[in-house]
């Protein structure tokens, strides 16, 4: 009997041991599996974050967000980054049914079907959140935020529908050195629980690690953008340069001089000499309002349209009307060209001037030593319909006497600034012309150039500078 009992006890203990062993094995397996998940995660994160040099910032942010959601088991989230200026944050990556966080939440009803999710995403992406404002803005000040009771939290908008309702939320700043560059926000745990302190620590460390890669990726973006702009500018400058006359024409009884100094940011000035017909010479000074390649292309268009019409029409007003008609069709709605066009009769020294929204020419008269402004009305090219343009366009005539000088220029001359931001101004230009006029066109151009250079020494140049001088020697 005792023996049977002993055997039974032994068998039971054996079963118990086997059972325990199995449980231990299962536990080991579970731990191993978890370890694998962690190892996999660390590896993935490493890859995600290491790829910063050649991965587009938005793609990188989407990957980071994906892993952040997985780790803290959140059902939706977004990453906000600071805009380049103004202390404003904008969402750059969104996942899941993530609610817009700025505003009260009233009036927003979204269903997941019928494009609702897309609209929701767009609403989140278009939000601008100020530093310190709401959940995101607060985390942007540098400390993570855990919202356990959103019902009573003023930082969380109240959405009526179930889809957008926030049950729990977590936000952590992304910091590079001491500077916050953005914020990761996650809402609603997939298992229905509230986010814990350990979730908060996890998200903080993800944000911390990711920020280095995001910083470098953004830096790469800026460098890339700058490279594109530089390329654009050098192309624009090449176009602009190719449009300027290679040399100044020599005409008996007249003297001509001109110069163009492009600014760092290409403004879009040009000047031109046109053989209108035997005995008639066209002079052009123009300023295109657009920058870069688009400005340079419009300049090229304007130049060729003007040249082709100048050869059929001797009236400068008619030529400008044609240029306006032509350019209006192709020019962007926020671009225009200010231009002055003068036709000089090289036999009689009579100059006809038409002005389309440009600086008024200056006329030095040797007889009284005065500089006067050649007045005429005219709207810039590219903004008015033909009728309005024609209605307001006036022609003026100037009769050049021996010793007289006519100066055409762009606003870059009078708006050139010194180091303290003071403008050179029309008064100094007039004075310079008066003092140098006796030496003829070349002397005037030289004097203006030298004085401007002295005045603007050490200051940044914002606009192109163009001057064209015509004189009738004594």
């Amino acid at each position: 009997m005792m023996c049977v009992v002993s055997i039974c006890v032994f068998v039971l203990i054996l079963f118990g041991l086997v059972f325990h062993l199995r449980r231990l094995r299962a536990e080991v397996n579970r731990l191993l599996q978890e370890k694998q998940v962690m190892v996999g995660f660390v590896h993935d994160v490493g890859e995600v974050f290491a790829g910063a040099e050649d991965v587009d910032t938005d793609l990188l942010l989407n990957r980071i967000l994906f892993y952040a959601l997985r780790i803290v088991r959140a059902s939706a989230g977004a990453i906000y980054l600071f805009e380049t200026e103004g202390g404003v944050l904008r969402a750059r990556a969104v996942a899941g049914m993530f609610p817009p966080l700025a505003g009260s939440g009233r009036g927003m009803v979204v269903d997941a079907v019928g494009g609702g999710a897309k609209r929701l995403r767009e609403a989140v992406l278009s939000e601008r959140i100020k530093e310190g404002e709401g959940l995101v803005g607060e985390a942007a000040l540098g400390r993570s935020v855990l919202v356990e009771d959103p019902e009573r939290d003023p930082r969380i908008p109240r959405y009526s529908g179930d889809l957008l309702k926030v049950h729990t939320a977590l936000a952590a700043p992304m910091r590079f050195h001491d500077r916050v560059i953005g914020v990761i926000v996650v809402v609603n745990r997939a298992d229905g629980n509230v986010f814990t302190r350990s979730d908060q620590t996890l998200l903080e460390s993800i944000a911390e690690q990711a920020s280095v890669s995001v910083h470098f990726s953004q830096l790469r973006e800026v460098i890339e953008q700058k490279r594109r702009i530089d390329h654009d500018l050098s192309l624009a400058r090449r176009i602009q340069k190719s449009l300027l006359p290679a040399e100044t024409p020599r005409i008996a009884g007249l003297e001509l001089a001109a110069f163009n100094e492009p600014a760092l940011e290409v403004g879009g000035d040009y000047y031109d000499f046109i053989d209108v017909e035997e005995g008639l010479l066209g002079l052009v000074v123009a300023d295109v309002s657009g920058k870069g390649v688009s400005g340079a292309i419009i300049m090229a268009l304007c130049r060729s349209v003007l040249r082709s019409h100048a050869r059929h029409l001797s009236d400068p007003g008619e030529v400008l009307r044609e240029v306006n008609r032509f350019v209006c069709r192709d020019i962007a709605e926020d671009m225009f060209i200010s231009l002055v066009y003068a036709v000089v009769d090289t036999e009689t020294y009579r100059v006809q001037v038409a002005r389309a929204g440009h600086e008024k020419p200056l006329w030095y008269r040797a007889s009284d030593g005065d500089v006067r402004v050649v007045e005429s009305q005219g709207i810039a090219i590219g903004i008015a319909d033909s009728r309005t343009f024609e209605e307001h366009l006036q022609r003026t005539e100037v009769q050049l006497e021996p010793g007289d000088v006519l100066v055409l220029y762009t606003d870059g001359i009078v708006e050139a600034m010194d180091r303290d931001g003071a403008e050179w101004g029309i008064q100094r230009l007039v004075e310079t012309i008066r003092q140098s006029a006796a030496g003829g066109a070349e002397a005037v151009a030289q004097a203006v150039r030298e004085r401007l250079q002295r005045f603007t020494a050490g200051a940044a140049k914002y606009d192109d500078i163009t001057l064209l001088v015509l004189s009738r020697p004594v």
Partner: protein
Amino acid sequence: MKQCRIEREQRENLDILHLDGALDAYSFPRLEAALRALREENRNNVILDCAGLDYISSASLGALIGFARRARENGGDLKLVKLSRKIYNIVELLGFHKILEIYPDLESAVRSFAA
């Protein structure tokens, strides 16, 4: 030069942009952003209060003209008020005073929209 501050005042049927400072190459993106926001919200009646404006670049004027054109296509307009002598001279030189409506004060511009 002082960078331009742009403040938006929203009224029932129109928006007023109060400008303060210089609208140069640096402030230009700010003007662009303000106009873009109005466009996106389909706000087409706009008054530009230029009382505090002491410089305007040609690119900024281009942006204003472009906005005015679009606004007109949508039944609205862009009008300028309280231009200093200097700003008016720039606008006049370009002939823009023949294209854009200019008023001496805010009230008359607001009334012109109501009419």
